[in-house]
């Protein structure tokens, strides 16, 4: 027997979908939340350096597994099947909470100019750079909701570049670790404006859960102490607690059914026993992440939309972005390691905008604690990669290294894209996503600029040896994947309107980083959450007014 009709199906219980499900079920809608992964916990993989969500040689701790391959363009015209634990796959996660279970939990608001990049800089040739159809001021109340309902520790009083806010953070900022203290003094000497990184972690006990115990490994791992805040321990349980939301795990969405009148009727999916199911609903919200949401839309073909739902003008899957991480590694004469995790504590926002001759920029932060295996690849150019010298380097410098990195705000490129592979199918027989294209040359220029600033900061802090980490031209995406279903006012150059509603299908919405027109010079999780509140709120308002039925 098919389960009964509901008001809303939400696909994906991550940063966006978990929050939309909560907003809708609190507003009284009946909701089915489909999640392809399962509930996960720290105990499954603990602090394993080889199976987590950041370092994945033996697999992804928090999904997906090899039943979900993708295809990537390995060389021009040459396609290769890749598994989720390979870098080219561009994985985020597949579990209840998705990336918010294992993220580093940086809680950034984008800045005002991040929403109007084209107006600020003009579009570089070869880029589809555009302004968002909403402003920072539009989203500000929803950032606040995310900070208070999910839980952020922070203090922006020392950051003059912080965008305006109405309300402070609900929890005090974390203190600097040893690296942070060394870097703060140096930044001040350089005339920069260091401040503590805002974090979706509890600096004090809150909402019935613990304060952070400064575990060594955090980014890439679930929290053993439940002090890291994701949708799996906030929005999703609250949605279920309303009694209006049913979470169905291990359910793989294959198609949004769109009828002859151009309305979404429901979602076809495979349940945990691989049985084909169909859940009908009054409206559908897609929150599978930028790549999987695009894939689902493209796999949703109908008479009105033979190239996929919402894809009348071939914008679904385009402008795939992530972050061109850039920075520098510095070695110090004395120990900089204090084992106070997760390690990333200090940032500057001096280089996000206003850099002469540079289109955008990015924040700079000290990095999370490097696991020993991760450190084996951190070597200055030309240093031995193995042998006695490599081992000596490891022994001498593991506790004397500081890494400063930043996410370069990328210029969207039309040919950087997720589409559907014509041949390869996953375990359930669904055509897989295939990825192609690369970064804009401007990103590399910005990367070199940001890396030079990181180097300067480390030298001022006393590093005796410093080298750069620069991005390549390869396709971006990965855990910060964004841009594939961009919002906009013109249906011919965007996929959804400013509310995340598809231009072409009134009762079909997107609520994930696919909506991002540009991806900011910051980790995107808090912005995805704010958009979840934004989209969810507007659906609930329309519903109360009698719309969308």
């Amino acid at each position, binding site marked *: 027997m098919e389960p009964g009709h509901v008001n809303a199906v939400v696909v994906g219980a991550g940063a966006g979908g978990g929050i939309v499900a909560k907003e809708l079920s609190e507003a009284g809608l009946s909701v089915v939340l489909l999640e392809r992964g399962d509930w996960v916990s720290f105990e499954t993989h603990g602090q394993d*350096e080889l199976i987590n969500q950041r370092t994945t040689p033996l697999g992804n701790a928090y999904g997906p597994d090899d039943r979900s391959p993708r295809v990537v363009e390995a060389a021009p015209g040459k396609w290769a099947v890749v598994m989720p634990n390979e870098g080219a796959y561009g994985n985020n996660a597949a579990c209840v909470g998705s990336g918010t279970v294992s993220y580093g939990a940086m809680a950034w608001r984008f800045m005002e100019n991040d929403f109007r990049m084209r107006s600020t800089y003009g579009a570089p040739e070869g880029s589809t750079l555009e302004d968002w159809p909403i402003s920072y001021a539009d989203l500000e109340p929803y950032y606040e909701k995310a900070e208070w309902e999910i839980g952020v520790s922070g203090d922006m009083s020392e950051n003059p570049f912080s965008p305006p806010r109405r309300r402070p953070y609900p929890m005090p900022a974390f203190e600097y670790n040893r690296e942070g203290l060394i870097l703060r003094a140096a930044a001040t000497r350089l005339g920069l404006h260091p401040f503590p990184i805002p974090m979706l972690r509890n600096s004090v006990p809150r909402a019935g859960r613990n304060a952070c115990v400064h575990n060594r490994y955090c980014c890439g791992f679930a929290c053993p102490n439940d002090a890291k805040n994701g949708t799996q321990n906030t929005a999703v349980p609250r949605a279920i607690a309303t009694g209006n939301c049913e979470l169905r795990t291990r359910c793989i969405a294959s198609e949004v059914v769109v009828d002859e009148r151009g309305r979404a009727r429901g979602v076809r999916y495979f349940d945990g026993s691989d049985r084909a199911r169909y859940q009908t609903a009054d409206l559908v919200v897609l929150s599978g992440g930028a790549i999987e949401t695009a894939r689902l839309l493209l796999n949703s073909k109908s008479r009105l939309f033979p190239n996929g739902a919402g894809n009348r003008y071939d914008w679904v899957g385009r402008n795939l972005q992530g972050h061109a991480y850039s920075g520098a590694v510095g070695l110090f004469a004395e120990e900089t390691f204090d084992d106070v995790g997760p390690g990333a504590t200090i940032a500057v926002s001096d280089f996000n905008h206003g850099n002469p001759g540079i289109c955008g920029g990015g924040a700079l932060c000290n990095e999370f604690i490097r696991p020993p295996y991760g450190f084996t690849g951190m070597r200055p150019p030309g240093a031995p990669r193995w042998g006695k010298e490599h081992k000596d380097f*490891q022994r001498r410098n593991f506790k004397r290294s500081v890494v400063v990195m930043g996410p370069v705000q990328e210029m969207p490129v039309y040919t950087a894209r997720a589409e559907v592979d014509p041949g390869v199918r996953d375990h359930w027989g669904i055509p897989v996503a295939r990825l192609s294209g690369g970064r804009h040359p401007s990103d590399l220029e910005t990367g070199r600029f940001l890396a030079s600033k990181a180097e300067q900061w480390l030298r001022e802090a006393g590093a005796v040896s410093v080298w750069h980490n620069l991005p390549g031209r390869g396709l971006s995406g990965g855990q910060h994947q964004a841009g594939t279903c961009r919002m906009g006012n013109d249906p011919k150059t965007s996929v959804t309107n400013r509310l995340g509603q598809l231009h072409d299908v009134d009762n079909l919405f997107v609520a994930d980083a696919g909506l991002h027109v540009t991806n900011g010079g910051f980790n995107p999780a808090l912005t995805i959450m704010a958009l979840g509140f934004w989209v969810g709120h507007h659906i609930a308002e329309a519903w109360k007014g009698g719309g969308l039925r």
Partner: protein
Amino acid sequence: MGAPEPDTAGGAGLSRRTALKLGVVGFVGAAVGVGSTAAFARLVRTTRPRYRFFTDDEAALLVDICDQIIPGDEAPGATDTGAIDYIDRQLGGPYARHRRAYRRGLESFRRTCLEAHGGPFRGLPAARKLEALRSIESGEAPQALWDEPSARDFFNMVLAHTMQSFYGSPRHGGNRGYASYRMLGLDYPQVVGQNRYPKA
């Protein structure tokens, strides 16, 4: 999907020595009139090879390579801490897709040493060992001996897996006795209220 490679060299990693042993045992069994299939199967089980994937010869060569990648000194190296066990175990799991590369790559490596460096790897003087490894790392080894994997790809694969074994979690077969964590001075495991986090 990384379909498992059929085991071609000696079947399921049966070494020549083991096969010889089985032959002898089989002969004795037949002589006393108990050479039934069931009895033979029992004997096979009791003489299971040391490795799941590698032959003894392959394993011996790989151990010598890993030993150069992370040599033992005042702290243990790759060999002492189970690098070969780590790699062998992963080839039966997540690294099944690398089986062919190991089988063919080790053979190319063996022939490279014989044909370009003057003898089996184990017997080479220390400097010649490094020379052989560097030629494979840089891809300068004789092209004719390295079809697939390429010398460089093979080296990078073994390098990555050796580093994983030594610096990764001991639960996968390497880093025996938390050797690398001890070397780096890292407490492990971290226990709330004991070596870390007194205020948990």
